[in-house]
């Protein structure tokens, strides 16, 4: 299509963008802003809307002064400290195996990607069974080596590692695919040059592969930190925040406050706190990425 002038071009661009922008506004921007508004009100969703009362920053004060937020953040941190290194190592390993050419490689790619397509509800229910203390598959496997496994999901210390295990199973296929694309993108001549200089497999990996895919590693870390703050389905189904408060996390709190305690205003305040945390963390990461991410390939 030939576009004559600038104004016409703008209209065309606008029209092309309209469907997705409209969706973004209706389903994201409006709720985000109305949540900010709601967070200044006491709003019980079972009561008529006229009963809403303005209470200013009271929700934020309660939220920041209660010990709950600290517990929530500690749990999230505990999750991320375990999950992020493991997911990177596992999916990189998977990716480097899948980047080789062998018979049936596509079948393996599909198999490893299958958990990603599985719904969390189904996956979490299966993992709940796998992690059962007495009858669970994992503990029976461990017993084979003479190890007495814990009652994963009902044990304060092991509940979060149990969730991490399930998350690794669920997500590694996805990140392996991202790493696979990165590995294929690395210029083969670097390896050839290194081989001539007598570099071994580990040297090649640490000196060539790792620096060259560092932007992707950075991306995966950011994605996972953001996703880590938003973890919900697995926890909701597998532990519901328990045992005790060992696995309470932000989104689970938002859900409980909104739909179990009917405190929609408080839940909205919680969401905004989550938004600010993610915003700050991501900003800091972008600020410091120059120090270790290598962008020339």
């Amino acid at each position, binding site marked *: 299509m030939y576009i004559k002038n600038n104004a016409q071009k703008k209209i065309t661009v606008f029209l092309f963008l309209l469907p997705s922008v409209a969706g973004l506004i209706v389903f994201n921007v409006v709720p985000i802003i109305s949540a900010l508004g709601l967070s200044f009100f006491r709003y*019980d*969703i*079972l*009561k*008529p809307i006229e009963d809403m009362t303005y209470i200013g920053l009271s929700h934020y004060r309660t939220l920041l002064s209660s010990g709950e937020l600290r517990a929530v953040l500690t749990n999230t941190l505990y999750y991320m400290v375990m999950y992020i290194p493991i997911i990177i190592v596992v999916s990189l390993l998977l990716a480097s195996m899948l980047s080789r050419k062998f018979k049936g490689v596509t079948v393996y790619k599909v198999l490893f990607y299958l958990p990603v397509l599985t719904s969390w509800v189904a996956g979490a229910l299966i993992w709940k069974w796998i992690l*059962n*203390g*007495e*009858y*669970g598959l994992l503990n029976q496997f461990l017993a084979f080596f003479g190890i007495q496994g*814990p*009652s994963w*999901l*009902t*044990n*304060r210390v092991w509940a979060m590692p149990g969730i991490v295990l399930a998350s690794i199973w669920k997500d590694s296929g996805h990140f392996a695919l991202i790493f696979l694309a990165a590995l294929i993108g690395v210029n083969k001549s670097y390896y050839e040059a290194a081989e001539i200089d007598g570099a071994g497999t580990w040297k090649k990996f640490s000196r060539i592969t790792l620096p060259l895919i560092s932007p992707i590693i950075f991306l995966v870390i950011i994605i996972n930190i953001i996703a880590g703050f938003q973890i919900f389905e697995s926890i909701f189904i597998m532990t519901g925040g*328990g*045992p*005790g*408060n060992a696995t309470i996390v932000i989104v689970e709190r938002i859900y*409980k406050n909104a*739909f*179990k*305690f*009917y405190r929609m205003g408080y839940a909205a305040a919680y969401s905004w706190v989550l938004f600010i945390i993610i915003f700050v963390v991501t900003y800091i990461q972008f600020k410091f990425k120059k120090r270790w991410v290598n962008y020339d390939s």
Partner: protein
Amino acid sequence: MVIIILKLFFKIMNYKNIKGGYVMFKRLVSVLMVVCLLFVVVLTGCDKTADTEESGVVTITYFNFSAGADNAEVLEAMIADFEEDNPGIKVENVSVGYGEYFTQLATKIAAGNAPDVFELNMENFLAYAIRGTIREVDGLFEKTGIDKSVYSEAVLKAGSFNDKQYAIPLMFSTVMLVYNKDLFDQAGIAYPTEDWTWEDEMQAAKKIRALGDDTWGVLQGIQFWEFYKTIQKNGGNLLSEDGKQFTMNSPENIETLTYMRDRIWKYNIEPTEEQRADRGSNDLMVEGKLGMFYGGVWSFADLVKRGEGVNWDIEVEPGNTAKASHFFANVGCISTTTDKYEAAFKFLNYIASNPKAVRRRIEAQWELPTINDPELLKTYLEIKPPENKEAVFKSLDYAVKPPALEQFAELVEIVNPKLEMVRDNLMTPKEALDAAQKEAEAMIRLD
């Protein structure tokens, strides 16, 4: 729509291309897809014709959770009976799992899309009644001529608020001491009786525990529901008598919680979480590894099914200075926003008290009917095991109810984690109850 699809169909059939197997195959697939699409269109069309109903028929939506998978057919049959006896009313049954039920209900009500009739458990009943989402029904009893006295007095209270009836009690359940006769015999002790105390229970449990490494005297668990019941056996309570103050950390309550903890950590007649290893009380019972547990009427069916060869019976729970037994009820509510309240009211009373429905409930052992007709209840008592079925009704004499609070769900979330800290021996009973008291005072309004 159909025409468009047909056009598409002919276009595919006339599509000119190089002839060959692959193309033929592709074409075949396309044709199949078109046929599938046609099916979808025809089926949705059918659905629409079914929707338009003859005038004069009222359709009410019944939103419920308690039928679950086990009793879905029973509920369907009750509804079919009702529709047959009341030709003018149709019931659309929407059953949702307990886990997501209250989320969905709250969302529907908030969106102004409340179901005409919905089920609530008594813990949540008050929260909904206070918020004005439920219609008062006293007037409807008079208007429809349905006799309120078919229901027993005690269960009617489960659906009343401010001395007015707001809901129809649909079913109730009690909790008893379930015990393994064989283990009692092996340990050489007499079976429990109605006047058993904590001390008797403790002695028996110790002897049964001595039978084996993985054999347990008793399993009660330390959680909110067991806690509010057990403290009442010891003269305590969660709230002061006027309901204006929390009395969570009273000396009686601390003493009770200490007793509950000692059974696990001092005497180990009850397994720790680690020793229990995710096995439920029914699992341990059918494996013959558990002397006693506190089980509701809902656990009978499973025990009968899985516990072949296990010789079990029930008795009223032992008490200390007083006796206390759990009482739970589910009630049927009519939304304040519906104008089909008369049909809704008829329907609720039908599934709660119509002899046909009651018989179906008893046959399925779907909790207990709320009517007080002794003839009908007799059929329930005749279904055995357990041998001592009367204990189910005797427990009613000591019934204690969950605290009726607007913020009930929140109270559970405050108290439960602290109790679990005691259960896992990470907090002393006093520390835990002090913390629970403090947090409850800060977060829950009592007015």
